[in-house]
């Protein structure tokens, strides 16, 4: 091959090589985007479908666990003597230490029914919200708000009152994943009913307050006068930036009369 022919061949080959390199880069980029797309689609399917499937499967097992838990739950009577002046009841247990109201008060002692504290991770309550389609038939609530507890959908915050008891019972739940029990919580309005079944019976609450707060605002979990139920979930939907908080007050239940008298 003469020099001229060699130069001519190089001139033809150089752009072809450049094109091949560019093609390889394009090919690599194309596959990268396809993999990223598949991974993103997988993430969406996992979060919206697979986690919910797991949570719904767990619900049937939790229903059985809850019934067994109710049978084992110890219910004790606490005697409460309503105070005529201050409005605060004084209480004691049913072993003879009760009925310790201040001298001179003639109010009739009342019996507050108290259930034993459930173990962490155990289903112990069923929450029903007739207005919300997802919660019309009820959703099992477990004790605890650890990641593993909330994989079942909704969990009761330890340290807060149990539903149906005086104070503030806090229940947290997922909004977009793991069964999304509180997905439609924003559809609740003041006056709507929330029912909670426990070993004691059914306690009915009425929505009084709705708040949107930062995840660090602990005041929503603090004890309150009377008996309250506070539901918390992530807000807005598909974001964990804030919390949507619904506060409801007890209007009917096994302890309603006693709690009203204690106010």
């Amino acid at each position, binding site marked *: 091959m003469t020099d001229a022919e060699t130069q001519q061949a190089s001139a033809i080959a150089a752009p072809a090589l450049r094109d091949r390199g560019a093609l390889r880069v394009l090919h690599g980029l194309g596959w990268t985007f396809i993999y990223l797309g598949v991974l993103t689609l*997988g*993430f969406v399917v996992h*979060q919206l479908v697979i*986690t919910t499937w797991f949570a719904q499967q767990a619900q049937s097992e939790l229903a059985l666990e809850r019934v067994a838990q109710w049978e084992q739950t110890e219910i004790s009577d606490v005697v409460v003597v309503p105070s005529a002046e201050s409005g605060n009841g004084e209480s004691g247990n049913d072993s003879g230490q009760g009925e310790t109201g201040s001298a001179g008060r003639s109010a009739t002692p009342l019996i507050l029914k108290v259930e034993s504290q459930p173990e962490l991770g155990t289903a112990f309550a069923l929450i029903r919200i007739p207005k919300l389609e997802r919660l019309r038939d009820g959703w099992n609530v477990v004790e605890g708000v650890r990641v593993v507890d909330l994989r079942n959908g909704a969990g009761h915050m330890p340290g807060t009152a149990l539903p149906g008891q005086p104070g503030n019972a806090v229940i947290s739940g997922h909004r977009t994943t793991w069964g999304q029990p509180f997905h439609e919580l924003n559809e609740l309005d003041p006056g709507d009913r929330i029912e909670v079944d426990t070993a004691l019976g059914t306690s009915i609450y009425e929505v009084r307050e709705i708040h949107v707060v930062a995840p660090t*605002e602990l005041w929503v979990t603090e004890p309150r006068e009377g008996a309250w139920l506070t539901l*918390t979930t*992530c807000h807005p939907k*598909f974001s964990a930036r804030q*919390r949507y908080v619904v506060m409801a007050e007890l209007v009917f239940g096994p302890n309603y009369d006693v709690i009203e008298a204690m106010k």
Partner: protein
Amino acid sequence: MIKRIWRLLPGPLSVRVVQAVVLTVVFLVALHFFYDWLGKWLLDQGGTVG
């Protein structure tokens, strides 16, 4: 990429099939935990306060 990994697997066909199944299961479990972690931080923390 899947073909390339398949070609890299050592041993006869039956051994490669077993290895492929094990690798797939490990990959899916790892992906599940990764998605779970990502979802917890991006989408939904379970609504807990504090």
